[in-house]
């Protein structure tokens, strides 16, 4: 879907979408939820504008904001996301461990994060080609193959 949006607008639109959904959650919450909803809308609007402005500048981070990365910048972003995933998993594990030790009932959100993270990792292995390798060209097919290495 994002492909139809100009690269420089992709991050700001994504930020604005997340902010709108978060603000809507506060409105659904009811009561005085409109206050944090307004704060969320104003905050994400400012963030989206800042992302758009930065997207036009000339640095690695600004290329990420502007969705116009080259291969090196994509690699940096992938490594950064990988680190994010690892830290999140460690934090979730620490959370579930602390909750269990405390006999608290708030263990399950951490368990959900761990489960989703683990599933995403397996999905990634599957999507990015682990297990796709075929048999080796020199696999034993019943013939005695002379080794090219002389002893």
């Amino acid at each position, binding site marked *: 879907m994002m492909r139809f949006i100009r690269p420089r607008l992709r991050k700001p639109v994504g930020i604005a979408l997340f902010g709108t959904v978060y603000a809507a959650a506060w409105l659904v919450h009811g009561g005085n939820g409109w206050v944090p909803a307004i704060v969320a809308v104003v905050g994400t609007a400012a963030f989206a504008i800042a992302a758009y402005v930065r997207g036009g500048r*000339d640095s*690695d981070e600004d*290329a990420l904001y502007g969705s116009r*990365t*080259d*291969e*090196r*910048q994509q690699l940096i972003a992938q490594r950064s996301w990988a680190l994010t995933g690892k830290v999140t998993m460690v934090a979730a594990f620490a959370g579930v461990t602390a909750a269990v030790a405390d006999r608290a009932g708030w263990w399950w959100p951490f368990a959900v994060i761990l489960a989703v993270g683990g599933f995403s990792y397996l999905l990634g292995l599957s999507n990015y080609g682990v297990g796709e390798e075929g048999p080796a060209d020199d696999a034993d097919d019943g013939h005695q193959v002379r080794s090219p290495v002389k002893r």
Partner: protein
Amino acid sequence: MRNRVREQRTQQGLSQSELAAALGVSRQTVISIEGGRYLPSLPLAFAIARFFDMTVDKMFDPADEEAGT
């Protein structure tokens, strides 16, 4: 791994920005490649070599790494 990107670029009187635009990468990536901090992908290495009318093995020299092993 040593490379001759900076040498070839300056010989041709190009700025890093001009080379980056010609290769379709960022100026920062050209800087990283010239400094040896980033090894380009095979397609980009071929694009660089082709741009300077050289072969990849002339442009990128693994001698430093082999000497260290």
